[in-house]
């Protein structure tokens, strides 16, 4: 059985030392190993950004796509081969700016993939512009006088879009993160996981320390029930989105693949391409 080391490759990540993304990579590798997967069963797809490099740092199938389109890519892959573990990953710019439309539609569609957003409240790779997650007043290269747009609340939005799995992790709490990712992969539907992954180079506000002081793990909330959507929404609003852990899970709703009329359990990609002659002839009858 593969260990987390089997998910490592020999590429040295080009992230800055201390970047939160290292922990996300490690947690993903651990979660996969814990779940007993082999590298070839796994595909990690990613967007463009510092975070987007992650697909190249794991020993597994990896696809580093274009900015903001990782989710359609991942959904297409899962449709082709439902036996694969498909993990989509990217930054907060990737998933909440240019790619937000796909994020929300992937949530409502509920195809069984796991989505990791490395949320550093900034654009790392393009050297420090504001992101949709930047707080009002946050000063960046593109908002020298401070951001004036309301930050996006991705998890509340996810709930509003009918998400069946909503979680939030933090790069400093690797055990929690491993657990979240494991559960996300196990969840038979779309798993929306936002991860506070500090950018040590451009974000001097939302630092490790800042997060440590501000996150509210669900297990510090008495009687928190991750199956109550309304409660989850309310708690997110009350904690201003700083809630971490598995925030909501709906285990009843089947995944998209399981709801498609006539869709087989056997992956599409394993089915023969050649159509039977009889089937072909039958199709033509409609046009006779």
């Amino acid at each position: 059985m593969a260990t987390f080391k089997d998910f490592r490759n020999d590429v040295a990540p080009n992230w800055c030392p201390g970047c939160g993304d290292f922990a996300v990579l490690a947690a993903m590798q651990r979660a996969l190993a814990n779940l007993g997967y082999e590298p070839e069963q796994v595909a990690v797809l990613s967007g463009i950004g510092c975070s987007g490099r992650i697909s190249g740092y794991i020993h597994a199938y990896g696809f580093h796509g274009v900015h903001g389109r990782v989710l359609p890519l991942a959904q297409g892959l899962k449709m082709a081969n439902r036996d694969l573990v498909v993990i989509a990953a990217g930054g907060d710019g990737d998933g909440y700016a240019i790619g937000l439309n796909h994020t929300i539609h992937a949530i409502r569609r509920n195809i069984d993939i796991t989505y990791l957003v490395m949320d550093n409240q900034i654009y790392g790779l393009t050297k420090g512009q504001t992101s949709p997650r930047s707080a009002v007043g946050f000063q960046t290269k593109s908002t020298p006088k401070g951001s004036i747009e309301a930050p996006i609340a991705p998890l509340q939005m996810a709930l509003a879009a009918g998400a069946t799995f909503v979680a939030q992790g933090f790069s400093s709490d690797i055990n929690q993160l491993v657990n979240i990712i494991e559960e996300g992969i196990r969840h038979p539907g779309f798993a929306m996981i936002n991860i506070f992954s500090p950018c040590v180079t451009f974000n001097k506000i939302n630092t490790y320390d800042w997060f440590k002081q501000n996150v509210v793990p669900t297990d510090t909330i008495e009687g928190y029930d991750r199956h109550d959507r309304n409660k989850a929404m309310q708690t997110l609003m009350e904690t201003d989105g700083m809630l971490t852990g598995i925030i909501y899970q709906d285990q009843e709703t089947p995944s998209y693949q399981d709801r498609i009329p006539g869709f087989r359990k056997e992956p599409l990609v394993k089915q023969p391409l050649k159509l039977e002659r009889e089937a072909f002839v039958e199709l033509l009858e409609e046009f006779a």
Partner: protein
Amino acid sequence: MVDQLSWKVGGQQGEGIEKPGDLFATALNRLGYYLYGYRHFSSRIKGGHTNNKIRVSTRPMRSLPDDLDILVAFDQETIDVNVRELKKGGVVIADLKFNPALPEDVDVRLVSVPFTEIAKGLGSTLMKNMVAVGATIGIMDLPIEPFQEVVTELWGRKGQTVVEKNMAALEEGKKAALDIVGGPLPEFKLAPADGKKRLFMIGNEALALGAIAAGVRFMSAYPITPSSEIMEYLIKTLPKFGGTVIQTEDELAAIVMAIGANYGGARAFTASAGPGLSLMTEAIGLAGMTETPVVIVDTQRGGPSTGLPTKQEQSDLNAMVYSTHGEIPKIVIAPSTVEECFYDMAEAFNLAEEYQCPVIVLTDLALSLGKQTVEPLDYDRVEIRRGKYLGDETLPERPKEELFKRYEFTLDGISPRTIPGQKYGIHHVTGVEHSETGRPSETATNRKKMMDKRLQKLKGFRIKTPIHVHAPHDRPDILFVGINSTEGVIREAMERLEKEGLKINHIHIRQLYPFPADDVRPYLEASEHVFVVEQNATGQLAQHMILNVGYREKIHRILKYDGNPFLPKEIEHEARALIKAKELI
């Protein structure tokens, strides 16, 4: 008795005007006639004039005729708009209800049949359509049985009474018309057809069938005219084969999902029209760069922007060849008949896998939506070729450290390919410039080699029939060149001009990119003049010929971009005008 005639039915949009046309054509198709149809409609749901023009012939005819024999009118607007298209001696069969009137100066006959009244008498005004077809049957002296057969199929689900009522509508329509006219009109009596079984479908259906035949079980798309029927047919049909269609949030998702599915090893595609294709521009580059097979259908319509969404045009040639920043390998093929829609589409998936690049199947609205008689589609002509895809059987073991070289440098530039799930095929893919194992790489030498590798793939690329050739002459006066749906209309114009002693050849471009210059050159060379016939305003196909083959001075353009398909006479006249104006011959 005539070998061919044309029939048109018109009325208000949203009132079921498609039904009578479909019934008429399907029945005639079963009798062995060749049908060719074109629907005139607008971008609105209810209201506005719509019509369906159908050409019936005892031999294959792939164009609209210049004029019209019979017009079935459900309102006065239909008469006003179309009456001048009628031949001398043509007939208007109109619903008595709206008190149809003809202009004074036309030499056509009006037959007013109480469509609505008869239908009402039978229980529902909806059946006025059937009455109208019945009237047609009477006037053209057609056998009623095939019509009854189709009616049974159409309404069978609704029960015997409905079928019978519709049958009655047909009968009464026929009778009423015959009563008025006094008997069938011999000038509309068709010569008997060969009675052979052929198919009757639109290009979009053929494209969808081609995809299924090629093994496609997944499509991702966003609705748009005139491509939606492809997706709609597959939505209906793929579940039978364990597949499905996802209607995505937009075209960006549609193409990227298709890329994802192809990356996963499935055969998947998307289809759209101009606005959607424009939105796919970035992702097409991704497929090119990552060497992921993907097939994209562009059903051209009137542009630019939202343009003329329900009208005929061929103005995306340049965009399909050149769009996306940077330089990628890409294939653009252009079927010219509904049959070719089927075969080309099936072949597109082979090309995509063999060359590991995006393949665009380009059609136009007239081809995608025009319903035509189609020769039986040949199951045995559909091959499945997967190029350098390595199944598990052919994939050697390798140690973990040694990543599979997904972008291995090879002589032909095409690298072996594995898909996720394969134990010894693990590799990385990136839209960033990369090494043989798919890792980002910026070194100058690797970069150059990788660019060369990708572009090398299509050096000398040629599909089996990159051009259609109809070249009876060694040294013709004129070479006609066209693309997509205009093949039939060009041929028809050409035949007329030949009758006047002009020597004319015709080639029709089926492989637009890479442009088959070597195939085209001899015909350009041999001909005195070249008339490129296209449905756009800037002569895009002519540009591709000049760029890739040359002979700028020989090349003249016959263009149409008013939203309607070319008529034979238009090409004929324009060709004559050109000859005269330029003193060519």
